[in-house]
């Protein structure tokens, strides 16, 4: 009984998700086919990956607006520098290099937030601007495309009929879920997000924990960049502009509180799926795709308003 109560938040969200799914199937029976379900999962997976990173920042009562730019930069870097001679070894080297770069971006965010105490949205916006500027700078006005088959497999392949991005998202969620629930870092993240002062009194390294959250978010964005570049099979400095907001919306619907310390990976999954279903539903209803982008704005606002953890009346 108490277990149900405990997970009421997640369960009610799951219920809404199922209702949405059933409604969509009723409207369009083909929606329920395995192919389509896999497709929905594939579309969600990128949002899911990015949202997982942003959620780590939200859990320490921060935010990360930079993933979109990180994706653009990593994509350019890969296209321009790391593709090189097309051998597997070089590809692996390239991916490692990109993950290192994205970790540095995350560390820059973390430094601004944890060491300089800047408001997270401003710090990560500033870094975002710098990173996207770098992406433009490095393109030389070119679009890079024509990647190797091996690389294209990362984002565009499938194993046993399941698209690779879904598999990557699943692996990432398992890792992050483990990190949040079964490691001391996870405990520290929740402690810092829930009450920074009490965490400090408990001898928790608040600065280090904040740094870790932003570095992980950067790493995850870099990873998303690799998957996305592979799926697009091209590298451009403009890509990824909508990603951060979409991921924030997914995290918000999934019950990750903007006040920090509240939310879990199941929430992120439900949130990302719900967002995709909403978009899908809008497509089914013949709503223009321009509207679909803006729906994320409405969703963010509604999600925080409904969430009782965030929307407390001012006292």
């Amino acid at each position: 009984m108490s277990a149900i109560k405990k997970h009421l938040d997640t369960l009610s969200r799951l219920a809404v998700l199922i209702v949405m799914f059933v409604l969509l199937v009723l409207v369009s029976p083909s929606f329920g086919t395995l192919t389509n379900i896999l497709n929905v999962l594939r579309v969600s997976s990128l949002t899911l990956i990015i949202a997982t990173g942003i959620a780590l920042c939200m859990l320490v009562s921060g935010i990360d607006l930079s993933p979109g730019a990180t994706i653009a930069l990593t994509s350019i870097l890969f296209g321009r520098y790391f593709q090189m001679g097309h051998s597997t070894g070089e590809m692996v080297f390239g991916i490692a290099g990109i993950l290192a770069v994205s970790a540095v971006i995350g560390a820059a965010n973390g430094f601004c937030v944890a060491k300089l105490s800047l408001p997270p949205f401003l710090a990560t916006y500033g870094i975002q601007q710098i990173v996207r500027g770098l992406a433009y700078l490095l393109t030389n006005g070119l679009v890079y495309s024509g990647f190797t088959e091996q690389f294209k497999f990362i984002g565009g392949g499938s194993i046993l009929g399941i698209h690779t991005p879904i598999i990557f998202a699943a692996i990432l969620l398992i890792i992050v879920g483990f990190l949040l629930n079964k490691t001391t870092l996870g405990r520290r993240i929740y402690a810092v997000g829930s009450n920074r002062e009490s965490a400090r009194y408990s001898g928790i390294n608040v600065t280090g924990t904040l740094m870790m959250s932003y570095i992980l978010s950067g790493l995850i964005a870099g990873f998303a960049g690799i998957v996305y570049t592979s799926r697009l099979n091209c590298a451009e400095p403009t890509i990824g502009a909508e990603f951060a907001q979409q991921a924030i919306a997914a995290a918000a619907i999934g019950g990750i509180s903007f006040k920090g310390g509240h939310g879990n990976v199941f929430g992120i999954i439900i949130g990302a799926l719900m967002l995709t279903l909403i978009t899908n539903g809008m497509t089914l209803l013949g709503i223009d795709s321009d509207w679909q982008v803006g729906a994320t704005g409405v969703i963010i606002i509604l999600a925080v308003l409904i969430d009782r953890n965030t929307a407390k009346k001012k006292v």
Partner: protein
Amino acid sequence: MSDVILELRNICKEFPGVKALDNVSFDLRKGEVHVLLGENGAGKSTLMKVLTGVYHPNSGEIVLHGNKVSFQTPRDAQLARIAIIFQEFNLAPNLTVAQNIFLGREPKARSGLIDRAKMVRDAQEILDFLKVKIDPNAKVETLGVAHQQLVEVAKALSIDSEILIMDEPTATLSENEISALFDTIRNLQKRGVSIIYISHRMQELKVIGNRITVLRDGQTVGTCEASEVTLDELIRMMVGREISKVRTRTENTAREETALEVSHLSQGNKLKDVSIRVQRGEIVGLAGLVGSGRTELAQAVYGITRRDSGDISICGEPIQNPTPIKCIQRRMGFISEDRKECGLALNLPIRVNVTHAGLKSIFPGGIVDVRRERKLAEDYRAKLRIVTPDVERNVVNLSGGNQQKVVLAKWLSTDSAFLVFDEPTRGIDVGAKEEIHNLIRDLAVNGVGILMISSDLPEILTLSDRIYVMREGRIVHEIEQVTSETTQEEIIAYATGGAEQ
């Protein structure tokens, strides 16, 4: 002089588990300074909050000018010409003196704009009346604390208050500033303003007060004319009940090892050349009034605030620039007085809170063994008798006493050798209080050094082996050996400065 303008009759106010005010009666005459005296937690602030509409009494009535009134909000009280000057800072520092005085009531010129000239003029008039030299156009942040306090007085006067409540107005003032404030108060008296004056400082009560009412444990002990009472009598009234002099700890278990050694610690005007020592196995009480520097001392040791000078060593190891992390490494723990802000992650489960302080030592590999974590939480739940259906419950849903036990569990699980308890039983019901006392004793018997800050004198007296008394940032007295002869009067006398009279 004797016409009563305000009467509080049989006021009762209960909070969940605590009876904060029990049948308190109080009256105020026109033009008098009526001092409200009592230990921390005696109910003075609660009574004033009832009077100013912040709290609503469970029973009893407020009679103003012979009419029964009931204030729903602080605004209602203001409209009835009752103003309160809080201890905490209540001005907008970036606005000018005049803007602050008239905030929310700015005079408008015919153009609809604020009539600044009139506002400054009126402010100047009030300041002149108070005989203070403050420029009404100066920004409040450029003023010293004393002047800021006077601006609050001016603000209270500007609503033409008839009753003015001052909560510890001299706590942050120097001697000169205090005498200036007293001049102001006398001026106000002449104008017919009645003042309720809350203070701990014994010396000043008889200087400024006409009558003194003593509260204790939410009850009125008595009211007397200031000129007819001695300080000793007042102290006895505050302390009241003769507590059982039977000390439960008969043997002194203090060991050779030092748990804490602080020498010549100074920090701004908060701590002045403080030296203390705590042995392992010893309970040392740190008594003093609120603001005397007790918590500040503990925070400086724990690295929450920076000290200016002085040496600190914990469990024999000197510590250069203390931080909570370094202190915990040296087996120190800190049970803060502010559970909600500094002690607990309220929206996380009990199980998770219990391991927060000992994450590194309990799970050295960085991997959390949830089963072990749960067992640990369950063990403490049983040992400390934390009342909860299960340890997965979020801490926010527990009562104050049980929350405090979770904080204790957190520190017990770190295997500390030196623990600071800052007001360990404040706002906690009697049963839980007794349990926490027993626990503190057990810890000492097992060799933990304990520094206990408490405003609850019986608590200090029954538990401590040794007692330091602080006043105005200094250690003013040390009771080497607490015996059955040690009295609360002795402590109060030093803490209030009454001993110097």
